């Protein structure tokens, strides 16, 4: 009989080994197969119906793309800005929404609502709102006597503008994760701190912040990976423009794919996959480092 458990733990498994077969088949067909297929196709010149093996040429060409470096830098900026803001805003909103404020349940739904809306819909809506002259945002600013910037048409601002919309849409999920983390902190800790003379701010620094660290790790990891892979919002709002000012790896890949360079764009995907691994694995190791003592 096949032994599925690792030798280190010789405790017999509760379920027979073949129980995991259905999941394994689905996982294999829908995930492993495409992954290895794309690894193979990234090494070919591929025109949907036939492919010829060309070794690492696709990768060589991908890295010769004139705007690739710009795309790589943009991707990292986008991921850092959007995940950083989601952590800070998500935590602040969660603290607010777990305190004794009026209409707490209602406000929680309001914050979570954007998560449920289609990304492309959000993108299109904000493109309209961010129109430099007729958009509601700049009209609102004009009423306050401020001349709003060209959110999506200014090459220096376009990427950040999209990242801000990403934060607007994604902060609800971060907030929900933080709320779950905060309500799991026993009330005793706050009471003990209060008797020790802790101010609300000190309780936040010494109790809430360290004890919701698992939530922080989850939010950073999820939103950072999401930021690195971002495509739909960029595509809906700027198509990588103006020029190539807001191109990310994913949008570069998509443009190559649209142009019919399937092998090349598959190679780009492999590069993105490796990039995510190279950035996220050390990050999570760093974030989880101290938790062994818990």
């Amino acid at each position, binding site marked *: 009989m096949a032994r599925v458990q690792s030798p280190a733990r010789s405790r017999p498994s509760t379920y027979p080994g073949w129980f995991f077969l259905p999941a394994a088949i689905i996982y294999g067909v829908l995930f492993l197969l495409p992954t290895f297929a794309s690894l193979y196709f990234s090494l070919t010149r591929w025109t949907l119906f036939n492919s010829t093996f060309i070794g690492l040429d696709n990768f060589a060409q991908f890295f010769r793309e004139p705007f690739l470096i710009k795309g790589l830098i943009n991707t990292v900026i986008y991921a850092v800005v959007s995940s950083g803001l989601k952590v800070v805003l998500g935590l602040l909103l969660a603290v607010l929404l777990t305190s004794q404020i009026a209409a707490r349940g209602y406000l929680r739904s309001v914050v979570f609502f954007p998560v449920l809306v289609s990304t492309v819909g959000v993108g299109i809506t904000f493109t309209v709102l961010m129109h430099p002259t007729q958009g509601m945002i700049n009209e609102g600013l004009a009423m306050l006597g401020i001349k709003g910037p060209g959110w999506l048409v200014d090459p220096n601002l376009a990427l950040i503008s999209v990242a801000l919309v990403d934060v607007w849409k994604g902060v609800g999920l971060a907030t929900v994760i933080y709320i779950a983390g905060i309500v799991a902190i026993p009330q005793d800790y706050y009471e003990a701190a209060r*008797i020790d003379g802790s101010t609300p701010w000190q309780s936040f620094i010494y109790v809430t912040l360290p004890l919701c660290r698992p939530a922080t790790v989850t939010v950073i990891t999820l939103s950072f990976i999401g930021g690195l892979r971002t495509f739909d919002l960029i595509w809906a709002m700027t198509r990588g423009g103006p020029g190539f000012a807001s191109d990310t790896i994913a949008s570069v890949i998509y443009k190559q794919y649209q142009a019919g360079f399937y092998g090349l764009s598959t190679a780009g995907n492999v590069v993105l996959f490796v990039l995510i691994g190279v950035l996220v694995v050390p990050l999570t190791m760093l974030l989880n480092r101290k938790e062994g003592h*818990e």
Partner: protein
Amino acid sequence: MAGLELKALHKTYGQVPVIKGVDLSVSHGEFVVFVGPSGCGKSTLLRMIAGLEDITSGELWIGDRLCNAVEPRDRGIAMVFQSYALYPHMTVYDNVGFGLKLARTDKAERDRKIRDAARILQMEHLLDRKPSQLSGGQRQRVAIGRAIVRQPEVFLFDEPLSNLDAALRVDMRMELAKLHQDLGSTMIYVTHDQVEAMTLADKIVVLNGGVVQQVGAPIDLYQRPANLFVAGFIGSPKMNFAEVSVQSINGGMVTVASKDISAVTVAADTKSLKVGDRLTLGVRPHHLSMDASGTLVGGVSLVERLGNETNVSLRLPSGATWLVVLDGDHNLRPAQALQLAIDAEKVVLFDAAGQSLLAAM
């Protein structure tokens, strides 16, 4: 020097009254135990003293200050929680020193106080550990250490031993008693365990349903319970009760009997009694002894032989079951008939309202 004075304290949650008028005075250095069944409001009362719950009405005096609206940190109290509430991300050293750090105590001073507390509690070797690396008893020590460094006038404990196993609980109980002797501070201790209350307290406050039932020294509560509730709650094993009726009254002595008890004559407050009144007789299991001329007869239903004493469940003719603790070892068989004498000097009579009819001393 800080005693406490509680005057007509009330607490309601929404419409629900939980503490219904508690008056109590605690003098400096006293070890006071709040005891009562689960949900009777012990923790609520303690938390009102700590400042973690608002006082709905009444006055709380700590020392000579009215503390109703004083912040917890300024009340001169320290509290040990049932869960210990040790911060999992801090070492024992930092846990103990947390309050001092918040108070911006000078670093050398802080270090000295933390090490002093650790020495008193014999946990110097634990200072660098995290709470997860400690046993239950060690965590308990750290929690007490955190209270000690604050040098409070009043220590508050909320069921601090209930998460420990039985043997450790006995050890920690003795250490707490010793700590109280050494520090000489006022201590208020909440427990639902009457044995803890009896062994630790200078003064026990029995609570039920948010109302103080009786306040007194442990032995007074045991010997002279004010009502049926206290009589049933204090003492282990529990007091036996029987419905009796008054046969005759002779000065300060009243003779009562029931279906199970042929007659027993008890000293009592007989002023309001008359022949035929229905009363409740309370007899502790230890106050029964085997006697061929005894007034109580029953059949043995269960025997526990502990060597030094024998616990017997006795089935009485009326169908009631009484518990009897006999000195020494007795090899009794189930269904065996047993004749017992009641030590009439130690029994208590209760009137129909459940108030005890103890003769004035």
